[in-house]
Protein backbone atom coordinates (compact mmCIF):
# COMPACT_ATOMS: atom_id res chain seq x y z
CA UNK A 1 0.00 0.00 0.00
CA UNK A 2 1.44 3.25 -0.98
CA UNK A 3 0.92 6.31 0.92
CA UNK A 4 0.48 9.27 -1.17
CA UNK A 5 1.03 12.70 0.06
CA UNK A 6 -2.32 14.32 0.25
CA UNK A 7 -2.15 17.93 -0.60
CA UNK A 8 -3.87 19.79 2.17
CA UNK A 9 -5.33 22.91 0.71
CA UNK A 10 -3.64 25.77 2.42
CA UNK A 11 -5.72 28.78 3.21
CA UNK A 12 -3.30 31.55 2.49
CA UNK A 13 -3.24 33.80 5.52
CA UNK A 14 -1.94 37.18 4.44
CA UNK A 15 1.46 37.88 5.87
CA UNK A 16 1.87 40.63 8.40
CA UNK A 17 3.69 42.78 5.86
CA UNK A 18 0.94 42.49 3.29
CA UNK A 19 -1.74 43.23 5.88
CA UNK A 20 0.10 46.36 6.97
CA UNK A 21 0.66 47.38 3.38
CA UNK A 22 -3.04 46.95 2.70
CA UNK A 23 -3.95 48.92 5.79
CA UNK A 24 -1.59 51.66 4.76
CA UNK A 25 -3.06 51.81 1.25
CA UNK A 26 -6.60 52.10 2.64
CA UNK A 27 -5.44 54.82 5.02
CA UNK A 28 -3.71 56.72 2.21
CA UNK A 29 -6.70 56.50 -0.08
CA UNK A 30 -8.97 57.94 2.59
CA UNK A 31 -6.48 60.46 3.95
CA UNK A 32 -4.00 61.57 1.31
CA UNK A 33 -2.86 64.45 3.54
CA UNK A 34 -2.32 62.07 6.45
CA UNK A 35 -0.26 59.82 4.24
CA UNK A 36 1.74 62.84 3.10
CA UNK A 37 2.34 63.70 6.77
CA UNK A 38 3.50 60.17 7.50
CA UNK A 39 5.84 60.33 4.52
CA UNK A 40 7.27 63.63 5.80
CA UNK A 41 7.86 62.11 9.26
CA UNK A 42 9.52 59.02 7.77
CA UNK A 43 11.73 61.21 5.60
CA UNK A 44 13.05 63.04 8.66
CA UNK A 45 13.39 59.73 10.53
CA UNK A 46 15.60 58.37 7.74
CA UNK A 47 17.53 61.63 7.76
CA UNK A 48 17.99 61.34 11.51
CA UNK A 49 19.38 57.81 11.17
CA UNK A 50 22.24 59.20 9.11
CA UNK A 51 23.48 60.81 12.28
CA UNK A 52 24.19 57.36 13.68
CA UNK A 53 24.93 55.49 10.45
CA UNK A 54 26.20 58.05 7.94
CA UNK A 55 25.02 56.91 4.52
CA UNK A 56 23.88 60.14 2.90
CA UNK A 57 26.38 62.23 4.76
CA UNK A 58 30.02 63.02 4.13
CA UNK A 59 31.00 65.25 7.01
CA UNK A 60 30.96 65.25 10.78
CA UNK A 61 28.48 67.90 12.00
CA UNK A 62 30.98 69.26 14.54
CA UNK A 63 34.17 69.38 12.49
CA UNK A 64 35.18 72.95 11.68
CA UNK A 65 36.99 73.69 8.44
CA UNK A 66 37.97 77.34 8.17
CA UNK A 67 38.93 77.01 4.52
CA UNK A 68 35.25 76.67 3.57
CA UNK A 69 33.61 79.23 5.87
CA UNK A 70 30.22 80.48 4.67
CA UNK A 71 30.32 78.82 1.26
CA UNK A 72 27.03 78.39 -0.56
CA UNK A 73 25.37 75.12 -1.55
CA UNK A 74 27.63 73.10 -3.84
CA UNK A 75 28.45 69.54 -4.85
CA UNK A 76 30.83 69.27 -1.91
CA UNK A 77 28.57 70.85 0.70
CA UNK A 78 25.00 70.24 -0.43
CA UNK A 79 23.44 72.97 1.69
CA UNK A 80 26.54 75.11 2.15
CA UNK A 81 28.57 75.72 5.29
CA UNK A 82 28.21 77.90 8.38
CA UNK A 83 30.46 80.54 9.93
CA UNK A 84 32.82 77.88 11.29
CA UNK A 85 32.96 75.96 8.02
CA UNK A 86 30.79 73.15 9.35
CA UNK A 87 28.69 71.29 6.78
CA UNK A 88 25.10 72.51 7.01
CA UNK A 89 23.61 69.24 5.71
CA UNK A 90 25.45 67.29 8.41
CA UNK A 91 24.26 69.77 11.04
CA UNK A 92 20.68 69.46 9.79
CA UNK A 93 20.93 65.67 9.98
CA UNK A 94 22.24 65.93 13.54
CA UNK A 95 19.47 68.38 14.34
CA UNK A 96 16.91 65.91 12.99
CA UNK A 97 18.19 63.18 15.31
CA UNK A 98 18.15 65.57 18.25
CA UNK A 99 14.72 67.08 17.52
CA UNK A 100 13.09 63.68 17.10
CA UNK A 101 14.70 62.29 20.25
CA UNK A 102 13.73 65.30 22.35
CA UNK A 103 10.18 65.51 20.98
CA UNK A 104 9.39 61.81 21.30
CA UNK A 105 10.85 61.57 24.82
CA UNK A 106 9.14 64.74 26.01
CA UNK A 107 5.76 63.70 24.63
CA UNK A 108 6.03 60.15 25.99
CA UNK A 109 6.88 61.53 29.40
CA UNK A 110 4.46 64.48 29.42
CA UNK A 111 1.46 62.93 27.69
CA UNK A 112 1.97 59.69 29.64
CA UNK A 113 1.86 61.57 32.95
CA UNK A 114 -1.08 63.63 31.72
CA UNK A 115 -2.91 60.41 30.82
CA UNK A 116 -2.39 58.82 34.24
CA UNK A 117 -3.31 61.99 36.15
CA UNK A 118 -6.26 62.62 33.84
CA UNK A 119 -7.61 59.11 34.50
CA UNK A 120 -7.21 59.59 38.25
CA UNK A 121 -8.82 63.04 38.13
CA UNK A 122 -11.78 61.97 36.02
CA UNK A 123 -12.31 58.60 37.69
CA UNK A 124 -12.34 59.73 41.32
CA UNK A 125 -13.91 63.15 40.83
CA UNK A 126 -14.65 65.16 43.95
CA UNK A 127 -11.82 66.84 45.83
CA UNK A 128 -9.06 65.12 43.86
CA UNK A 129 -10.61 66.30 40.61
CA UNK A 130 -11.01 69.86 41.93
CA UNK A 131 -7.39 69.98 42.99
CA UNK A 132 -6.16 68.76 39.62
CA UNK A 133 -8.42 71.20 37.75
CA UNK A 134 -7.17 74.12 39.86
CA UNK A 135 -3.61 73.08 39.15
CA UNK A 136 -4.29 72.86 35.41
CA UNK A 137 -5.86 76.32 35.49
CA UNK A 138 -2.81 77.72 37.26
CA UNK A 139 -0.38 76.09 34.86
CA UNK A 140 -2.34 77.30 31.85
CA UNK A 141 -2.51 80.90 33.00
CA UNK A 142 1.09 81.47 32.00
CA UNK A 143 2.38 81.19 28.45
CA UNK A 144 3.91 77.78 27.76
CA UNK A 145 7.18 79.21 26.50
CA UNK A 146 7.56 81.28 29.69
CA UNK A 147 7.11 78.19 31.88
CA UNK A 148 9.60 76.24 29.77
CA UNK A 149 12.12 79.11 29.89
CA UNK A 150 11.78 79.44 33.68
CA UNK A 151 12.24 75.71 34.13
CA UNK A 152 15.31 75.76 31.87
CA UNK A 153 16.85 78.60 33.82
CA UNK A 154 16.32 76.64 37.04
CA UNK A 155 17.43 73.26 35.68
CA UNK A 156 20.48 74.53 33.83
CA UNK A 157 21.51 73.48 30.32
CA UNK A 158 21.23 69.93 28.99
CA UNK A 159 19.25 67.79 26.57
CA UNK A 160 17.57 65.87 29.40
CA UNK A 161 16.57 69.19 31.01
CA UNK A 162 14.93 70.32 27.75
CA UNK A 163 12.96 67.07 27.68
CA UNK A 164 11.79 67.60 31.27
CA UNK A 165 10.86 71.24 30.71
CA UNK A 166 8.78 70.42 27.61
CA UNK A 167 7.21 67.37 29.27
CA UNK A 168 6.09 69.30 32.34
CA UNK A 169 4.58 71.99 30.15
CA UNK A 170 2.52 69.47 28.18
CA UNK A 171 0.98 67.69 31.20
CA UNK A 172 -1.92 70.13 31.93
CA UNK A 173 -3.33 70.11 28.40
CA UNK A 174 -3.26 66.33 28.13
CA UNK A 175 -4.64 65.98 31.65
CA UNK A 176 -7.62 68.20 30.91
CA UNK A 177 -8.58 66.48 27.66
CA UNK A 178 -8.08 62.96 29.04
CA UNK A 179 -10.15 63.80 32.11
CA UNK A 180 -13.03 64.85 29.88
CA UNK A 181 -12.78 61.59 27.96
CA UNK A 182 -12.70 59.55 31.18
CA UNK A 183 -15.80 61.33 32.49
CA UNK A 184 -17.86 59.93 29.61
CA UNK A 185 -16.06 56.56 29.43
CA UNK A 186 -16.61 55.72 33.08
CA UNK A 187 -20.39 55.78 32.58
CA UNK A 188 -20.18 52.70 30.35
CA UNK A 189 -21.83 49.47 31.42
CA UNK A 190 -18.58 47.52 31.36
CA UNK A 191 -17.16 49.81 34.04
CA UNK A 192 -20.19 49.16 36.20
CA UNK A 193 -19.81 45.43 35.53
CA UNK A 194 -16.15 45.52 36.54
CA UNK A 195 -17.11 47.28 39.73
CA UNK A 196 -19.92 44.79 40.40
CA UNK A 197 -17.57 41.80 40.26
CA UNK A 198 -15.31 43.53 42.74
CA UNK A 199 -12.66 45.13 40.55
CA UNK A 200 -10.29 47.37 42.48
CA UNK A 201 -9.93 51.04 41.56
CA UNK A 202 -6.51 50.65 39.88
CA UNK A 203 -7.79 47.65 37.96
CA UNK A 204 -10.86 49.51 36.69
CA UNK A 205 -8.83 52.60 35.85
CA UNK A 206 -6.01 50.93 34.01
CA UNK A 207 -7.50 47.66 32.69
CA UNK A 208 -10.98 48.84 31.78
CA UNK A 209 -10.93 52.58 31.22
CA UNK A 210 -7.39 53.17 29.93
CA UNK A 211 -7.59 50.79 26.92
CA UNK A 212 -10.83 52.44 25.88
CA UNK A 213 -9.39 55.93 25.74
CA UNK A 214 -6.24 54.99 23.81
CA UNK A 215 -7.51 56.44 20.53
CA UNK A 216 -8.02 59.99 21.83
CA UNK A 217 -4.80 59.67 23.81
CA UNK A 218 -2.74 58.76 20.74
CA UNK A 219 -4.36 61.62 18.82
CA UNK A 220 -3.44 64.12 21.54
CA UNK A 221 0.07 62.69 21.82
CA UNK A 222 0.69 62.93 18.07
CA UNK A 223 -0.63 66.46 18.14
CA UNK A 224 1.79 67.28 20.96
CA UNK A 225 4.79 66.06 18.93
CA UNK A 226 4.73 69.04 16.58
CA UNK A 227 4.42 71.37 19.55
CA UNK A 228 7.39 69.71 21.26
CA UNK A 229 9.55 70.18 18.15
CA UNK A 230 8.58 73.87 18.03
CA UNK A 231 9.21 74.15 21.78
CA UNK A 232 12.69 72.69 21.57
CA UNK A 233 13.52 74.88 18.59
CA UNK A 234 12.26 78.02 20.36
CA UNK A 235 14.14 77.27 23.58
CA UNK A 236 17.35 76.58 21.67
CA UNK A 237 16.85 79.67 19.54
CA UNK A 238 16.55 81.77 22.70
CA UNK A 239 19.76 80.23 24.04
CA UNK A 240 18.13 78.23 26.85
CA UNK A 241 17.70 74.93 25.10
CA UNK A 242 20.13 72.34 23.86
CA UNK A 243 23.69 73.42 24.71
CA UNK A 244 26.53 73.49 22.16
CA UNK A 245 28.07 71.56 20.48
CA UNK A 246 24.96 69.47 19.82
CA UNK A 247 23.50 70.53 16.48
CA UNK A 248 20.02 71.96 17.09
CA UNK A 249 17.77 73.46 14.42
CA UNK A 250 16.69 76.22 16.75
CA UNK A 251 20.18 77.25 17.80
CA UNK A 252 21.39 77.23 14.20
CA UNK A 253 19.06 80.18 13.66
CA UNK A 254 20.26 82.28 16.61
CA UNK A 255 21.67 85.55 15.31
CA UNK A 256 21.78 84.18 11.80
CA UNK A 257 19.42 86.56 10.01
CA UNK A 258 20.79 90.03 10.70
CA UNK A 259 24.40 88.87 10.39
CA UNK A 260 24.20 86.55 7.41
CA UNK A 261 21.22 87.83 5.43
CA UNK A 262 23.50 89.06 2.67
CA UNK A 263 26.49 86.76 2.92
CA UNK A 264 24.92 83.39 3.72
CA UNK A 265 21.10 83.26 3.45
CA UNK A 266 21.18 79.43 3.33
CA UNK A 267 22.01 79.48 7.04
CA UNK A 268 18.67 81.15 7.70
CA UNK A 269 16.56 79.24 5.19
CA UNK A 270 17.37 75.54 5.63
CA UNK A 271 17.08 74.97 9.41
CA UNK A 272 13.71 76.74 9.46
CA UNK A 273 12.50 74.72 6.47
CA UNK A 274 13.44 71.55 8.35
CA UNK A 275 11.44 72.61 11.42
CA UNK A 276 8.40 73.58 9.36
CA UNK A 277 8.62 70.33 7.40
CA UNK A 278 8.58 68.01 10.41
CA UNK A 279 5.97 70.01 12.36
CA UNK A 280 3.76 70.02 9.27
CA UNK A 281 4.26 66.26 8.99
CA UNK A 282 3.23 65.63 12.58
CA UNK A 283 0.24 67.98 12.34
CA UNK A 284 -1.05 66.44 9.10
CA UNK A 285 -0.62 62.92 10.44
CA UNK A 286 -2.23 63.85 13.76
CA UNK A 287 -5.23 65.41 11.99
CA UNK A 288 -5.65 62.28 9.87
CA UNK A 289 -5.50 60.02 12.96
CA UNK A 290 -8.18 62.18 14.54
CA UNK A 291 -10.43 61.98 11.49
CA UNK A 292 -10.08 58.21 11.38
CA UNK A 293 -10.42 57.46 15.09
CA UNK A 294 -12.34 60.19 16.79
CA UNK A 295 -13.84 62.99 14.72
CA UNK A 296 -15.52 64.38 17.83
CA UNK A 297 -12.16 65.72 18.99
CA UNK A 298 -12.03 68.05 15.99
CA UNK A 299 -11.19 71.56 17.04
CA UNK A 300 -10.04 70.57 20.49
CA UNK A 301 -6.43 69.83 19.68
Amino acid at each position, binding site marked *: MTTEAVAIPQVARPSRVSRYTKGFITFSAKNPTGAAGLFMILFIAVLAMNYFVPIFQRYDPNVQDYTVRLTGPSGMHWLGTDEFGRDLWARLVGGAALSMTVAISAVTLGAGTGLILGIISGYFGGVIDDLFQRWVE*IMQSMPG*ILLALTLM*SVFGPGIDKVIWALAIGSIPRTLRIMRGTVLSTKENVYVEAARAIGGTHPRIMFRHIAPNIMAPFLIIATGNLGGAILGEASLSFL*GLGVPPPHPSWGRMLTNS*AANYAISAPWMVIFPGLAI*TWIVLGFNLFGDALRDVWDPRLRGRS
Partner: protein
Amino acid sequence: MRNFVIRRVVEVIPTLLGVTLLVFLIIRVVPGDIALALLGGGEDGGASLDPAELAKMRKLLGTDRPLYVQYLTWIAGWPKGDLGKSLWNQQPILPEVATRFPLTFQLAVMAVVTGTMMGLPLGMVSALNRGRFIDFVARVTAIISQATPNFWLGLLIILVLVRTWNYLPPTGYNKLWDDPSKNFQQLIWPALVLGSAYAASIARMTRSTMLEVLNEDYIRTARAKGLAESTVIIRHVMKNSMIPVITIASLQFAGILGGTVIMERVFTIPGLGLFTLNAITQRDYTVVQAMVLIFAIKYVIANFAVDLMYGWLDPRISYH
Protein backbone atom coordinates in the same frame (compact mmCIF):
# COMPACT_ATOMS: atom_id res chain seq x y z
CA MET B 1 -23.50 92.63 35.66
CA ARG B 2 -21.66 94.39 38.47
CA ASN B 3 -21.93 91.29 40.60
CA PHE B 4 -20.51 89.25 37.76
CA VAL B 5 -17.48 91.53 37.50
CA ILE B 6 -16.89 91.39 41.23
CA ARG B 7 -17.24 87.62 41.30
CA ARG B 8 -14.82 87.20 38.42
CA VAL B 9 -12.24 89.40 40.12
CA VAL B 10 -12.56 87.39 43.33
CA GLU B 11 -12.31 84.16 41.37
CA VAL B 12 -9.03 85.00 39.66
CA ILE B 13 -7.23 85.82 42.90
CA PRO B 14 -6.60 82.16 43.80
CA THR B 15 -5.30 81.54 40.28
CA LEU B 16 -2.89 84.48 40.50
CA LEU B 17 -1.73 83.42 43.96
CA GLY B 18 -1.38 79.86 42.72
CA VAL B 19 0.69 80.68 39.68
CA THR B 20 3.01 82.99 41.60
CA LEU B 21 3.40 80.49 44.44
CA LEU B 22 4.18 77.77 41.92
CA VAL B 23 6.85 79.85 40.20
CA PHE B 24 8.18 81.08 43.53
CA LEU B 25 8.63 77.50 44.71
CA ILE B 26 10.17 76.29 41.44
CA ILE B 27 12.64 79.16 41.53
CA ARG B 28 13.51 79.07 45.21
CA VAL B 29 13.54 75.40 46.00
CA VAL B 30 15.19 73.83 43.01
CA PRO B 31 18.39 75.71 42.20
CA GLY B 32 19.80 76.02 45.70
CA ASP B 33 21.32 79.22 47.03
CA ILE B 34 20.88 82.34 44.90
CA ALA B 35 23.45 84.27 46.95
CA LEU B 36 25.98 81.58 46.16
CA ALA B 37 25.22 81.79 42.47
CA LEU B 38 25.48 85.59 42.47
CA LEU B 39 28.86 85.49 44.16
CA GLY B 40 29.95 82.93 41.61
CA GLY B 41 30.71 80.10 44.03
CA GLY B 42 28.20 77.59 42.73
CA GLU B 43 30.66 74.92 41.68
CA ASP B 44 32.39 74.07 44.96
CA GLY B 45 29.33 74.68 47.15
CA GLY B 46 30.68 77.98 48.48
CA ALA B 47 33.77 76.49 50.12
CA SER B 48 36.02 79.14 48.58
CA LEU B 49 33.81 82.06 49.68
CA ASP B 50 33.95 84.13 52.82
CA PRO B 51 31.02 82.96 55.03
CA ALA B 52 30.49 86.51 56.33
CA GLU B 53 30.17 87.86 52.81
CA LEU B 54 27.77 85.08 51.91
CA ALA B 55 25.61 85.88 54.95
CA LYS B 56 25.66 89.57 54.02
CA MET B 57 24.56 88.76 50.47
CA ARG B 58 21.74 86.55 51.77
CA LYS B 59 20.60 89.34 54.08
CA LEU B 60 20.68 91.84 51.25
CA LEU B 61 18.58 89.55 49.04
CA GLY B 62 16.31 88.58 51.91
CA THR B 63 16.93 84.88 51.28
CA ASP B 64 18.04 84.34 54.90
CA ARG B 65 14.39 84.41 55.98
CA PRO B 66 12.07 81.38 55.80
CA LEU B 67 10.42 80.77 52.42
CA TYR B 68 6.88 81.58 53.52
CA VAL B 69 8.02 84.91 54.98
CA GLN B 70 9.71 85.76 51.69
CA TYR B 71 6.58 84.90 49.72
CA LEU B 72 4.19 86.74 52.05
CA THR B 73 6.41 89.84 52.13
CA TRP B 74 6.42 89.83 48.36
CA ILE B 75 2.62 89.51 48.13
CA ALA B 76 2.13 92.19 50.77
CA GLY B 77 3.96 94.59 48.45
CA TRP B 78 1.52 94.15 45.52
CA PRO B 79 -1.24 96.48 46.73
CA LYS B 80 1.38 99.17 47.30
CA GLY B 81 2.66 98.70 43.75
CA ASP B 82 5.84 97.06 44.97
CA LEU B 83 6.77 94.02 42.92
CA GLY B 84 10.19 93.65 44.52
CA LYS B 85 13.66 94.58 43.40
CA SER B 86 15.89 93.07 40.78
CA LEU B 87 18.46 90.75 42.33
CA TRP B 88 20.94 91.84 39.74
CA ASN B 89 20.97 95.64 40.07
CA GLN B 90 18.64 96.26 43.05
CA GLN B 91 16.34 98.42 40.91
CA PRO B 92 12.61 98.32 41.73
CA ILE B 93 10.76 96.24 39.14
CA LEU B 94 7.47 98.11 38.71
CA PRO B 95 8.82 101.31 37.08
CA GLU B 96 10.72 99.17 34.58
CA VAL B 97 7.53 97.24 33.83
CA ALA B 98 5.58 100.48 33.43
CA THR B 99 8.04 101.85 30.85
CA ARG B 100 8.18 98.66 28.84
CA PHE B 101 4.53 97.64 29.06
CA PRO B 102 3.12 99.92 26.29
CA LEU B 103 5.36 98.38 23.62
CA THR B 104 4.42 94.79 24.45
CA PHE B 105 0.77 95.64 24.87
CA GLN B 106 0.71 97.40 21.53
CA LEU B 107 2.45 94.46 19.88
CA ALA B 108 -0.08 91.99 21.31
CA VAL B 109 -3.04 94.14 20.25
CA MET B 110 -1.62 94.63 16.75
CA ALA B 111 -1.05 90.89 16.48
CA VAL B 112 -4.62 90.08 17.50
CA VAL B 113 -6.01 92.70 15.10
CA THR B 114 -3.91 91.64 12.09
CA GLY B 115 -4.53 87.98 12.91
CA THR B 116 -8.29 88.43 13.07
CA MET B 117 -8.28 90.53 9.91
CA MET B 118 -6.44 87.77 8.05
CA GLY B 119 -8.07 84.75 9.68
CA LEU B 120 -11.77 85.59 9.58
CA PRO B 121 -11.99 86.36 5.83
CA LEU B 122 -9.81 83.34 5.04
CA GLY B 123 -12.08 81.04 7.03
CA MET B 124 -15.23 82.60 5.56
CA VAL B 125 -14.05 82.31 1.98
CA SER B 126 -13.04 78.73 2.70
CA ALA B 127 -16.41 77.77 4.15
CA LEU B 128 -18.48 79.51 1.46
CA ASN B 129 -16.44 77.84 -1.28
CA ARG B 130 -16.23 74.42 0.31
CA GLY B 131 -14.44 71.86 -1.83
CA ARG B 132 -13.35 74.36 -4.46
CA PHE B 133 -9.78 75.23 -5.30
CA ILE B 134 -9.80 78.42 -3.25
CA ASP B 135 -10.88 76.40 -0.18
CA PHE B 136 -7.94 74.06 -0.74
CA VAL B 137 -5.50 76.97 -1.04
CA ALA B 138 -6.86 78.65 2.09
CA ARG B 139 -6.63 75.45 4.13
CA VAL B 140 -3.12 74.62 2.98
CA THR B 141 -2.03 78.18 3.80
CA ALA B 142 -3.50 77.88 7.29
CA ILE B 143 -1.92 74.47 7.97
CA ILE B 144 1.51 75.56 6.77
CA SER B 145 1.46 78.78 8.75
CA GLN B 146 0.56 76.82 11.89
CA ALA B 147 3.63 74.66 11.40
CA THR B 148 6.03 77.53 10.75
CA PRO B 149 8.07 78.54 13.80
CA ASN B 150 7.37 82.21 14.44
CA PHE B 151 10.98 83.16 15.06
CA TRP B 152 11.97 81.70 11.69
CA LEU B 153 9.22 83.65 9.94
CA GLY B 154 10.55 86.77 11.65
CA LEU B 155 14.08 85.98 10.51
CA LEU B 156 12.87 85.38 6.94
CA ILE B 157 11.13 88.75 6.92
CA ILE B 158 14.34 90.42 8.07
CA LEU B 159 16.24 88.46 5.43
CA VAL B 160 13.91 89.54 2.63
CA LEU B 161 13.79 93.16 3.80
CA VAL B 162 17.56 93.38 4.01
CA ARG B 163 18.24 91.61 0.72
CA THR B 164 15.67 93.38 -1.42
CA TRP B 165 15.49 96.88 0.03
CA ASN B 166 18.57 96.90 2.22
CA TYR B 167 16.22 97.92 4.99
CA LEU B 168 16.33 96.81 8.61
CA PRO B 169 13.34 97.56 10.88
CA PRO B 170 14.29 100.12 13.53
CA THR B 171 15.33 98.81 16.92
CA GLY B 172 15.36 100.46 20.34
CA TYR B 173 12.54 102.09 22.26
CA ASN B 174 10.16 104.03 20.00
CA LYS B 175 7.08 105.33 21.74
CA LEU B 176 3.84 105.41 19.80
CA TRP B 177 3.23 109.13 20.54
CA ASP B 178 6.78 110.35 20.10
CA ASP B 179 7.55 108.77 16.76
CA PRO B 180 4.53 106.98 15.28
CA SER B 181 6.18 106.12 11.98
CA LYS B 182 9.23 104.53 13.56
CA ASN B 183 7.07 102.78 16.14
CA PHE B 184 4.86 101.37 13.41
CA GLN B 185 7.77 100.24 11.25
CA GLN B 186 9.22 98.47 14.25
CA LEU B 187 6.08 96.66 15.38
CA ILE B 188 4.25 95.83 12.14
CA TRP B 189 6.55 92.92 11.19
CA PRO B 190 6.46 91.06 14.52
CA ALA B 191 2.71 91.72 14.68
CA LEU B 192 2.29 90.17 11.23
CA VAL B 193 4.33 87.13 12.26
CA LEU B 194 2.39 86.58 15.49
CA GLY B 195 -0.84 87.35 13.67
CA SER B 196 -0.26 84.76 10.97
CA ALA B 197 -0.20 81.78 13.35
CA TYR B 198 -3.20 83.27 15.15
CA ALA B 199 -4.98 83.78 11.83
CA ALA B 200 -4.42 80.13 10.94
CA SER B 201 -6.25 78.87 14.04
CA ILE B 202 -9.03 81.40 13.55
CA ALA B 203 -9.42 80.49 9.89
CA ARG B 204 -9.65 76.77 10.61
CA MET B 205 -12.16 77.28 13.40
CA THR B 206 -14.23 79.79 11.41
CA ARG B 207 -14.41 77.37 8.49
CA SER B 208 -15.59 74.39 10.53
CA THR B 209 -18.16 76.23 12.66
CA MET B 210 -19.52 78.15 9.65
CA LEU B 211 -20.04 74.88 7.80
CA GLU B 212 -21.99 73.58 10.79
CA VAL B 213 -24.09 76.74 11.13
CA LEU B 214 -24.86 76.81 7.39
CA ASN B 215 -26.76 73.54 7.87
CA GLU B 216 -28.97 74.90 10.65
CA ASP B 217 -32.72 75.30 10.20
CA TYR B 218 -32.69 78.99 11.02
CA ILE B 219 -30.39 79.65 8.08
CA ARG B 220 -32.87 77.95 5.76
CA THR B 221 -35.61 80.03 7.35
CA ALA B 222 -33.61 83.22 6.87
CA ARG B 223 -33.07 82.37 3.21
CA ALA B 224 -36.69 81.29 2.76
CA LYS B 225 -38.03 84.58 4.02
CA GLY B 226 -36.06 86.26 1.27
CA LEU B 227 -33.13 87.86 3.03
CA ALA B 228 -30.23 88.85 0.83
CA GLU B 229 -27.46 86.26 0.96
CA SER B 230 -25.04 88.82 2.39
CA THR B 231 -27.45 89.56 5.24
CA VAL B 232 -27.86 85.85 5.92
CA ILE B 233 -24.11 85.39 6.06
CA ILE B 234 -23.33 88.43 8.19
CA ARG B 235 -26.32 88.57 10.52
CA HIS B 236 -27.08 84.90 10.94
CA VAL B 237 -24.13 82.73 10.00
CA MET B 238 -21.28 84.90 11.24
CA LYS B 239 -22.84 85.90 14.51
CA ASN B 240 -23.68 82.33 15.40
CA SER B 241 -20.29 81.00 14.38
CA MET B 242 -18.36 83.43 16.51
CA ILE B 243 -18.61 81.74 19.93
CA PRO B 244 -16.32 78.77 19.19
CA VAL B 245 -14.05 81.06 17.19
CA ILE B 246 -13.67 83.43 20.12
CA THR B 247 -13.02 80.49 22.44
CA ILE B 248 -10.17 79.32 20.20
CA ALA B 249 -8.95 82.90 19.90
CA SER B 250 -8.79 83.26 23.68
CA LEU B 251 -6.98 79.94 24.05
CA GLN B 252 -4.45 81.17 21.51
CA PHE B 253 -3.97 84.44 23.36
CA ALA B 254 -1.50 82.83 25.78
CA GLY B 255 0.45 81.84 22.69
CA ILE B 256 0.55 85.47 21.54
CA LEU B 257 1.77 86.61 24.95
CA GLY B 258 4.49 83.96 24.86
CA GLY B 259 5.17 84.86 21.25
CA THR B 260 5.93 88.46 22.19
CA VAL B 261 8.91 87.16 24.19
CA ILE B 262 10.33 85.53 21.07
CA MET B 263 9.41 88.35 18.68
CA GLU B 264 10.98 90.98 20.93
CA ARG B 265 14.16 88.97 20.79
CA VAL B 266 14.06 88.56 17.00
CA PHE B 267 13.27 92.24 16.29
CA THR B 268 15.14 93.67 19.31
CA ILE B 269 12.12 95.40 20.86
CA PRO B 270 12.80 96.45 24.46
CA GLY B 271 9.42 95.38 25.84
CA LEU B 272 8.41 93.09 28.68
CA GLY B 273 9.36 89.98 26.75
CA LEU B 274 12.97 90.97 26.29
CA PHE B 275 13.07 92.09 29.93
CA THR B 276 11.79 88.67 31.02
CA LEU B 277 14.16 86.84 28.74
CA ASN B 278 17.16 88.76 30.06
CA ALA B 279 16.04 88.09 33.63
CA ILE B 280 15.74 84.38 32.89
CA THR B 281 19.17 84.23 31.26
CA GLN B 282 20.74 86.15 34.14
CA ARG B 283 18.80 84.12 36.70
CA ASP B 284 17.32 87.29 38.14
CA TYR B 285 14.63 85.39 39.99
CA THR B 286 12.74 88.26 41.60
CA VAL B 287 12.21 89.75 38.15
CA VAL B 288 11.17 86.36 36.75
CA GLN B 289 8.53 85.84 39.43
CA ALA B 290 7.21 89.38 38.99
CA MET B 291 7.00 88.89 35.22
CA VAL B 292 5.12 85.62 35.60
CA LEU B 293 2.61 87.54 37.71
CA ILE B 294 2.31 90.23 35.03
CA PHE B 295 1.82 87.69 32.23
CA ALA B 296 -0.77 85.80 34.30
CA ILE B 297 -2.66 89.04 34.97
CA LYS B 298 -2.68 89.86 31.27
CA TYR B 299 -3.96 86.39 30.47
CA VAL B 300 -6.70 86.60 33.09
CA ILE B 301 -7.83 90.02 31.83
CA ALA B 302 -7.97 88.74 28.25
CA ASN B 303 -10.14 85.82 29.34
CA PHE B 304 -12.40 88.19 31.20
CA ALA B 305 -12.85 90.29 28.07
CA VAL B 306 -13.75 87.11 26.18
CA ASP B 307 -16.43 86.25 28.75
CA LEU B 308 -17.97 89.66 28.29
CA MET B 309 -17.91 89.17 24.52
CA TYR B 310 -19.81 85.88 24.83
CA GLY B 311 -22.69 87.74 26.44
CA TRP B 312 -22.71 90.34 23.70
CA LEU B 313 -22.75 87.71 20.96
CA ASP B 314 -25.21 85.32 22.54
CA PRO B 315 -28.04 86.95 24.50
CA ARG B 316 -28.90 83.55 25.98
CA ILE B 317 -25.77 83.87 28.13
CA SER B 318 -26.52 86.05 31.11
CA TYR B 319 -24.27 87.16 33.90
CA HIS B 320 -25.41 86.48 37.41
